[in-house]
């Protein structure tokens, strides 16, 4: 092993000192000054490519010479530039929008072969423009719903934004919004995601072969970048939809130097549904959510830039029943803030320092007569991250960094009183912990054919006091209490996480890739119910709860056709997961009294395997993809299901999605989504028994029932009036008229100044076009009298959404 490492460094340093110069810079969108993430920089003569990082920075090295350098990104015009490389040079390029007719897009936009050439596997980058074309539920553009259409990513059915990557649970996805983790990414119990499409620039999903700079979760990374704000001109953008409205303001503070963006969204379901609810049994129910994104950035100079971004969202549910004098309020939501500083040391060295804060809160309060109960849970994270990208030569890209987070978890705290009596729910339990990691990785072009990405991450998790551990005997009586003082170590875990991916090019358009990743996860989400609810509890590692650990092995074949217009891939994977968590049977999350919440859990293992097939058409009038996954997902817990292995509830043998968008003309765009999946698994009563003279259900084995298959078709059409052409026509008519009347034509105004750049679009989307009744849940019915032999049993299936048309008007000026 030592010899290999010595040889490796020898190779790196030999190549470091060869006579190379670098080309580096930042790529931006000329229309608004936003940096472009994942754009391609390509040196034609050397067949070498690099892509921009999440701050739009790139760096490439090449020997002295004359080259043609090409900048490309899917939604922009590809440009070529001739350069003479005899010193380190800096090229900051501003992409121009593709202004040609849509019919000519194919000619102008050249897709890259990065998917074939990269070492990374299972990485999918989605542009917001692409996401916005796909039919959206109730017209709400939703990032999470879109990624659920990708192979290897499964949804949990209607009304759920929780996603499951390669057999992992919904807590195993690291969701980052401008580098701050989001713990609960859904509004309205999972019907909508917390991400407002108008404020988002870019979405990257990494579902396998996770690079070393990411960690803390087992299954995937969903890295979401907010827009920085237009630093060229002031812009207002908004939309009015069926259930919510959005408004975004952005613009320069100092042109080319600093800009801001503020984006807000609020639902009015409460107002719309009130007349229906008031007539129903649910009178007194009200619900709404809102969210706010804000970002500010300042370019200090060519080498330094700072960003300050934040998110705040709240769901508020209330129920009042005047008759029974019962009142309840349930607010929950996320808040994040992140301050970042990009620093370019030189053309080979890029660094970013981030300080972020994340908060997730849930509370429930209920009041009836003199009885009052409150349940609170939440998370507060304070993080610091320092990441460095180093591009020493054309063959290596090093990434290294350190991350640190201080977590405060409040699992579930209950307080209740009845008149003067206060119930004892124990002391407020908070769990304090430090999570730290350091990593290094190298993306290494070993030869034209072979490229390797090797990384190593070391992570540590320490639970510290104040903390009380209650020691109980077998009858459950507390026999002792161990108290830990402030900052005293309660539990400590650490681990090495090797990450390795290798690409072997077969031809210029095809390659074979393989990867192995090992991940530790120090936080767990425990759910009592089979659907995601805000009551699900996040728990950190303690002495009792060990870190989750996953090993993922992936092998894939990648091939592009027709000059990268079509991307195809096949990936097979096998994943093992240790220390998976579930509530013990019969556990109550509020059992904190003289007890540690971690005693309510039981631990087991999981494993998953499958194959994913993906065909994507990237350019042209028709774009879209077909994804198909064949997979198996297993769990086994000693204390659940009598110790027998069982299929996870989101185990899905077949999962397919078909996404198509058609840019018919400049005015008309059509979108279609078809999804098909094997039904979810669930546990249903399988038998009856009589106890105390009353009939009860005997549940079958865990997840032994398979629901019927899920399928659905959604369509949408967007009409974008060509206002500029209309204005031009009006101007021409007026000019002719003025000339006829002999008036001065220089100051003809056809519209108000602010409305000059006004554009709008109308989207009609239809969800569940053929009105398929997909099961949301099944409940069993009983009629008659078992004592008289007239018992009749049956089952009813509840489907959430029938065919739902919706209409959205979007505007921008």
């Amino acid at each position, binding site marked *: 092993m030592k010899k290999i490492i010595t040889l490796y460094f020898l190779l790196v340093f030999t190549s470091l000192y060869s006579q190379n110069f670098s080309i580096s810079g930042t790529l931006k969108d000329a229309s608004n000054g936003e940096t472009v993430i994942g754009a391609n920089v390509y040196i034609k003569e050397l067949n070498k490519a690099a892509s921009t990082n999440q701050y739009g920075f790139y760096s490439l090295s090449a020997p002295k010479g004359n080259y043609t350098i090409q900048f490309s990104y899917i939604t922009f015009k590809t440009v070529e530039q001739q350069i003479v490389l005899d010193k380190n040079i800096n090229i900051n390029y501003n992409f121009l929008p593709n202004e040609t007719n849509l019919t000519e897009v194919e000619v102008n936009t050249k897709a890259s072969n990065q998917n074939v050439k990269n070492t990374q596997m299972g990485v999918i980058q989605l542009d917001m423009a692409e996401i916005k074309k796909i039919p959206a539920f109730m017209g709400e553009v939703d990032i999470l719903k879109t990624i659920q259409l990708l192979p290897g990513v499964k949804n949990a059915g209607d009304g759920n934004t929780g996603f499951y990557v390669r057999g992992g649970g919904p807590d195993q996805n690291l969701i980052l919004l401008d580098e701050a983790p989001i713990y609960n990414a859904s509004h309205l*119990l999972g019907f909508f995601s917390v991400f407002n499409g108008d404020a988002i620039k870019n979405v990257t999903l990494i579902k396998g072969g996770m690079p070393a700079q990411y960690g803390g979760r087992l299954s995937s990374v969903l890295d979401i970048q907010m827009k920085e704000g237009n630093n060229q001109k002031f812009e207002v953008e908004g939309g009015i939809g069926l259930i919510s409205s959005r408004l975004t303001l952005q613009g320069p503070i100092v042109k080319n130097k600093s800009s801001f963006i503020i984006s807000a969204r609020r639902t009015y379901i409460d107002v719309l549904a009130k007349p229906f609810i008031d007539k129903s049994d649910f009178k007194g129910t009200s619900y709404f959510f809102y969210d706010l994104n804000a970002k500010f950035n300042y370019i200090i100079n060519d080498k330094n830039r700072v960003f300050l971004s934040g998110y705040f969202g709240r769901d508020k549910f209330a129920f009042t029943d005047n008759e029974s004098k019962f009142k309840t309020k349930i607010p929950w939501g996320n808040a994040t803030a992140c301050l970042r500083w990009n620093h370019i040391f030189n053309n080979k060295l890029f660094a970013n320092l981030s300080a972020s804060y994340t908060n997730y809160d849930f509370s429930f309060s209920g009041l009836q007569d003199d009885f009052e109960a409150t349940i609170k849970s939440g998370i507060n994270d304070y993080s610091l991250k320092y990441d460095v990208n180093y591009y020493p030569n054309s063959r290596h890209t090093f990434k290294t960094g350190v991350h640190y987070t201080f977590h405060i978890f409040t699992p579930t705290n209950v307080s209740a009183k009845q008149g003067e009596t206060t119930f004892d729910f124990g002391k407020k339990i908070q769990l304090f912990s430090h999570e730290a990691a350091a990593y290094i990785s190298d993306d290494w072009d070993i030869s034209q054919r072979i490229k390797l990405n090797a990384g190593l991450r070391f992570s540590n998790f320490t639970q510290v006091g104040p903390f009380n551990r209650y020691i109980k005997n077998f009858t459950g009586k507390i026999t002792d209490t161990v108290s830990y003082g402030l900052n005293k170590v309660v539990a400590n875990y650490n681990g090495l996480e090797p990450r390795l991916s290798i690409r072997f090019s077969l031809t210029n358009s095809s390659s074979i890739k393989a990867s192995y990743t090992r991940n530790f996860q120090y936080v767990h989400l425990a759910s009592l119910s089979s659907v995601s609810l805000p009551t699900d509890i996040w728990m950190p590692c303690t002495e009792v709860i060990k870190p989750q650990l996953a090993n993922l092995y992936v092998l894939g074949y990648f091939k592009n056709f027709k000059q990268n217009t079509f991307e195809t891939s096949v990936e097979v994977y096998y994943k093992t997961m240790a220390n998976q968590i579930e509530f013990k049977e019969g556990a109550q999350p509020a*059992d904190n009294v003289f007890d540690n919440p971690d005693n309510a859990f039981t631990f087991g293992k999981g494993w998953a395997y499958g194959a994913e097939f993906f065909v994507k058409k990237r350019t042209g009038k028709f774009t879209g993809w077909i994804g198909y996954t064949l997979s198996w997902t297993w769990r086994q817990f000693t204390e659940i299901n009598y110790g027998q292995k069982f299929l996870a509830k989101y185990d899905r043998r077949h999962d397919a999605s078909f996404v198509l968008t058609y840019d018919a003309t400049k005015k008309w765009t059509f979108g279609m989504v078809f999804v098909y999946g094997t039904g979810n698994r669930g546990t249903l009563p399988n038998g009856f028994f009589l106890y105390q003279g009353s009939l009860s259900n005997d549940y079958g084995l865990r997840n032994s029932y398979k629901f019927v298959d899920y399928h659905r078709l959604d369509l949408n059409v967007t009409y974008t009036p060509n206002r500029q052409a209309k204005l031009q026509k009006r101007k021409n008519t007026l000019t002719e008229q003025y000339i006829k009347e002999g008036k001065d034509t220089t100051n003809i105004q056809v519209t108000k100044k602010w409305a000059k750049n006004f554009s709008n679009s109308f989207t009609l989307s239809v969800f569940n076009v053929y009105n398929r009744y997909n099961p949301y849940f099944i409940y069993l019915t009983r009629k008659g*009298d078992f004592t008289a032999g007239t018992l009749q049993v049956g089952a009813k299936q509840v489907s959430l959404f029938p065919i739902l048309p919706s209409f959205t008007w979007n505007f921008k000026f």
Partner: protein
Amino acid sequence: MKQILVLILSLFFIFSCRKDVILKLPTYQQKLVVEASIETGQPAFVLLSYSVPYFGNFDLSHPEQVYIQDGFVTLTDGTITDTLKKIIFPNIAIPFYIGSKITGIQGKTYTLKITVKNNTYTSVSTILNPTKLDSLYFKGEKDSLGLIWANFTEPFGVGDFYQWFAKRLTKDVFYVLPFNSSFDDKFIDGKSIHFAYNRGDNPYNVQATKDEIHPGDYSWGDTVVVKFCKIGRKEFEFWNTYYQNKSSNGNPFSAPSNIKSTFGNDLEVLGAFVAYSPSFDTLIIKKK
């Protein structure tokens, strides 16, 4: 917490659609169902039956198809072994197994052995020291109808488990267990509290209970005997999981709950052997 459901349900009200479906459930493995108890001053009492598949035919008008007639049941207190005798209740034709040599004594531990079709299952339970309620009172919510409330000072020390039974004299044949009749002292340890129970459903009397105008309520004129029992942890866990199973009742938002039998073999046996340590209180509900 259940109010969260209100939100979901109100959404269903707006959008959802419901239809009858035919389920193909996995093959069901029949289980032995045991209701066994002993209490201070009483002999052991055991009821044996089989569970049936969900879409099987459950018909108590033919009790011989449900109840086990040929079980062999013994009880031992360490010195004496009592073979329980089968008795058939004349009216409802249900076979019970009842002890004759042993009656429950406070502080003693009993072992129950059941043999059915050559398989033997064993469970152990102890009669603990009883805990008394402070007092009982009636609070009418609809004039003459209401619940029975108890004042209770819970002894100090976590790890006590209780179960509530009540019977209206002259009206109820058996002591009735209201829903969630068992509780522990986790949240109330060493405290003085007041709590209420409704009357619960009369066993084997589904239609009659439904036909009552005010099922579950006590009313003026009732004389109610409350049997408040102390039970052990394992026994409480059975009742706790039993009630969880009852309340989840196929509800998709709750975790499916398997019942923890006190016999240890949950795949084959459903049920419990519980040694009860009762204290009795009588309340005469008078017209105000």
